[in-house]
């Protein structure tokens, strides 16, 4: 299992490296005036694929989203919304911080970027622990009510989930936006970030949708009791994840 995970991780990282290199080359060709308008499209497409692959790798809160929908259960539409909202918050957080760093801290961009990222992780850890506590409350409530329904998750709850995970600025987005800003392509940088965000949103939504399907799978009805108890294990792991990031 561990070897399989290592091989998967290695592939994801290898692809990211390739895409990172494609994007750099494309910007280089723009800079040297060798590329035409088609290079803009190529950059946006590469950023989209980069987003898809980037979110496949570790991080980006897929586990938190998946745990949420596995324990809470919800409609596919809500899972889709949660994935895209998280990707959007993740991207806007990166865009905002990048703009501030570029405008006011040009001599220490990477230093502040790492510091901000570390603090954002801690903040996200606290939110993840709060999500775990909320899920515990929901699970206990569900135990009391025999007729649990998969009701729509309120927009407020979806926003809370998206905010708790997405608050950590995406380093991938920050790097690409900073890179394009340094070269003077401000609009293209922001457009690439948005394109990347759509790619990440698709991957994250798929993770969320998959878990809503698992939760609803009819053959699992037989094991409802076991699954209910397993929910507590999931919540404990989620809480542990928050603790591990925090300390």
């Amino acid at each position, binding site marked *: 299992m561990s070897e399989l995970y290592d091989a998967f991780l290695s592939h994801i990282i290898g692809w*990211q490296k390739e895409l990172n290199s494609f994007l750099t080359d494309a910007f280089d060709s723009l800079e040297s005036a060798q590329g035409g308008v088609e290079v803009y499209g190529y950059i946006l497409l590469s950023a989209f694929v980069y987003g898809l692959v980037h979110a496949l790798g570790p991080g980006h809160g897929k586990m938190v989203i998946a745990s949420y929908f596995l324990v809470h259960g919800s409609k596919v539409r809500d899972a889709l919304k949660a994935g895209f909202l998280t990707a959007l918050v993740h991207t806007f957080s990166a865009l905002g911080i990048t703009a501030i760093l570029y405008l006011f801290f040009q001599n220490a961009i990477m230093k502040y970027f790492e510091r901000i990222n570390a603090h954002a992780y801690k903040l996200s850890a606290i939110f993840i622990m709060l999500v775990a506590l909320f899920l515990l409350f929901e699970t206990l409530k569900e135990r009391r009510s025999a007729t649990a329904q998969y009701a729509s998750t309120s927009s407020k709850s979806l926003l809370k989930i998206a905010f708790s995970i997405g608050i950590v600025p995406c380093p991938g987005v920050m790097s690409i936006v900073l890179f394009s800003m340094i070269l003077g392509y401000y609009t293209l940088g922001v457009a690439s970030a948005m394109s990347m965000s759509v790619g990440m949103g698709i991957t994250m939504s798929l993770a969320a949708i998959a878990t809503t399907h698992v939760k609803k799978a009819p053959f699992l009805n037989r094991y409802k009791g076991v699954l209910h108890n397993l929910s507590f294990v999931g919540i404990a792991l989620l809480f542990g994840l928050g603790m591990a990031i925090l300390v």
Partner: protein
Amino acid sequence: MKFFYLIIVFHLTLCAHPHFFIDTDIRIEKEAIFHRWRFDALNSKLLIFEFDTDKNGILDAKEAQHFLKEHIEPLAANHSNLFFQSGEKEIPIKPKDFNVSIASKRLVVTFTTEYLFSQPSIFCTIDATLYMAYQLRNVQSIYAYDAQKSDYDFCLGVNP
């Protein structure tokens, strides 16, 4: 307890992903290993923008010192992402002679680890947080070696 640590480490890796992609060249001599880390083009651009303050395309002594202090010295807390093992024993190694330069628009860090290969040994370059992904590109060695590598870390088993 080991299981508990495994779970924590597994979950920590779930929330990290590489930010720097580093091509690594290794040269093994009788009493030392020479390391060359070449940063990816994208991050090189960002780092050069920040540290080449006079924008002359060269990192002078002061700029290089600044870079090493900000980005390389903090790695000491994690043994500079280097792990050496001789037999069953882990060997503490202190890298030295750090240098940073710009070559073909890439940031290149070189350094040395002194080590006398008296028996079969293993050394690895790995960042457990996955913040830096190390890809082994080239090895020159006076001894026979086996390489085990992925797209984010590698280990070399050296047989003197």
